[in-house]
Each structure stands twice: as structure tokens, then as C-alpha cells.
């Protein structure tokens, strides 16, 4: 079973995405979906060496809600900066965010979150995987920005990946 379905969650996701893409349900579609859901994880298994344990309950909902809310709020801030701030008043900086999470999947999720929430783009990871290099569009207080990323996102992601 483990050999046939190395990543059960990926299989379920692929079947669901396939059915949503077709926008209709039939037995044939379900069968094709399961073929894709079994073949794709088998062929991509070498790129997923770890099998992180993911908690899909409250921590994930809490995390998604806070990220979506931040995307909306911070979009308005970035729009205001683009429209009204003069270039020479822009305090764009590089930040070093030290990482507590260790799993590659958790770090990827954090880097993606940092890039999606406006005002910050994750640019690089330390060679030893213990820090992220983040570029900020406008940070008055770099230390506070780093603390915010760790408090708001990394803590919640650490709870998803137990």
C-alpha cells in the first residue's frame, strides 16, 4: 500500500483537482482521476523524499484565514505606497529571518507565504537552511518585521507540521 500510494494526500488532491477541472462528475472521470492520482505521485516520489506529517484540522484553517486576511490588508498598504510614496522616501531593505522550522516542506510554505503577503519577497535561503533572505518594500523597523513574520506565520506553520 505504501509503495503504491507514497503520498495519499497528494493522490486525493490530484483526484479532486481533476474532477474540478472537468467540472462534472462521472465514473469515467473518477477512474481517470485515480489513474493520474496514482501515476503522478509514483513518478514524482524521488522529489518528495520526506513524508511530513500534516495536521489538516484547526491549525491549517487558522493559518489560511490569517494569510488571506493579511493578503487583503497588505495589498491596500502596498497600493498606497506605489501611489503616494516618493521613491527617495522608500525604506526598502534586506531582512535575515532566522528559521526555527526544519522540514523542507514547512520552509517552502513559509517562503511562499512571505512572498504572497505584500511588502515582502523571499529571495534566497541560507546554504545550511537556517535562515531566509527576505526583501521588504518598506520597513520602518526591520527587527519588528522579522519578529512579525516569525510570530504570525512561522509559529502557525510549525503547528501544522507536527
Amino acid at each position: 500500500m505504501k509503495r503504491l500510494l507514497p503520498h495519499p494526500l497528494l493522490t486525493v488532491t490530484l483526484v479532486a483537482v481533476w474532477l474540478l477541472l472537468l467540472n462534472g462528475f462521472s465514473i469515467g472521470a473518477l477512474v481517470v482521476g485515480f489513474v493520474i492520482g496514482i501515476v503522478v505521485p509514483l513518478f514524482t516520489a524521488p522529489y518528495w523524499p520526506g513524508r511530513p506529517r500534516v495536521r489538516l484540522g484547526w491549525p491549517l484553517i487558522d493559518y489560511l484565514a490569517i494569510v488571506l486576511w493579511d493578503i487583503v490588508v497588505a495589498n491596500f498598504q502596498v497600493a498606497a505606497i506605489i501611489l503616494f510614496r516618493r521613491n527617495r522616501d522608500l525604506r526598502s531593505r534586506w531582512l535575515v529571518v532566522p528559521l526555527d522550522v526544519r522540514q523542507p516542506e514547512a520552509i517552502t510554505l513559509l517562503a511562499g507565504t512571505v512572498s504572497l503577503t505584500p511588502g515582502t519577497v523571499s529571495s534566497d535561503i541560507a546554504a545550511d537552511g537556517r535562515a531566509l533572505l527576505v526583501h521588504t518594500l518598506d520597513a520602518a523597523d526591520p527587527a519588528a518585521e522579522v519578529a512579525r513574520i516569525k510570530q504570525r506565520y512561522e509559529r502557525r506553520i510549525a503547528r501544522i507540521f507536527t
Partner: protein
Amino acid sequence: MTGAMALAELLISALIVLGGAFAFIGSWGLTRLPSLMTRLHGPTKATTLGVGSILIASMLFFPIYERSFTAHELLITMFLFITAPITANMIAKAHLHRQGHGVDPNPADSTDATIPEPERWSTFTRPPREQEPLPPAE
């Protein structure tokens, strides 16, 4: 019924205008911000909300007026949220490489001078050789 329809129409129009405005501001940021790294912020971000609100408008419009429902908008959102950070990361890394090799000496960026702890980042370090070649058998 007509009241509800009017309200829905108003909401959908507002969302489309909002989405268009954010997409426009994102593109405007692309032209007016001073350096590559700051320009990266405009289109990756303002666009998420821009595209997002147009997709929400579409998700409201089709069930209400055409009596049809598709989940494609959800998928578009999902794919966008997965691919946008990766694109931004690839551009940032390519930029760091060019700066490190002196190919892209835009004075407004000047990563060389400002990037903290330059030896630390994986872009600037050679990955360790995975396996040393075996010594010849005696």
C-alpha cells in the same frame, strides 16, 4: 427579487472595478519603482488581490445570472497562489546571480553593498559534492 438582483449587480460591479484598479496599480508600480527588487513587489502582490476580486465577481455572476456553477475560479486562485511566489523567487535569485557576477550593476539595487551576510546564501555557495569519486581499487 429585483432588489436582490440589483444588489448583486452592484456588488459584482464593485468587485470588477476594484480588481481592475489593483491590477492597474500593480502594473503602475512596475514602471515607477526604482529597482528590480522593489519592482518585484508590484506585480506579485497587488495582482493577487486584483485577480482575486475579479475571480470572486465571476463566481458570483455565473450562478446568479446564468444558473451555472464552475469551480474553475477556485483552481485559478490555487494555481496562482502556488506559482506566483516561485516566479518571484526565480527572478530574485537570477537577479542575485547577475549582481554577484557584476552583470547587472544597477546602482539602485546594489545588492553587493547591502545584502546581509553575503557568504551565507545558497545562491552564492557551491553545493557540496554529493559523492566523492571512489578511490581506485588496489
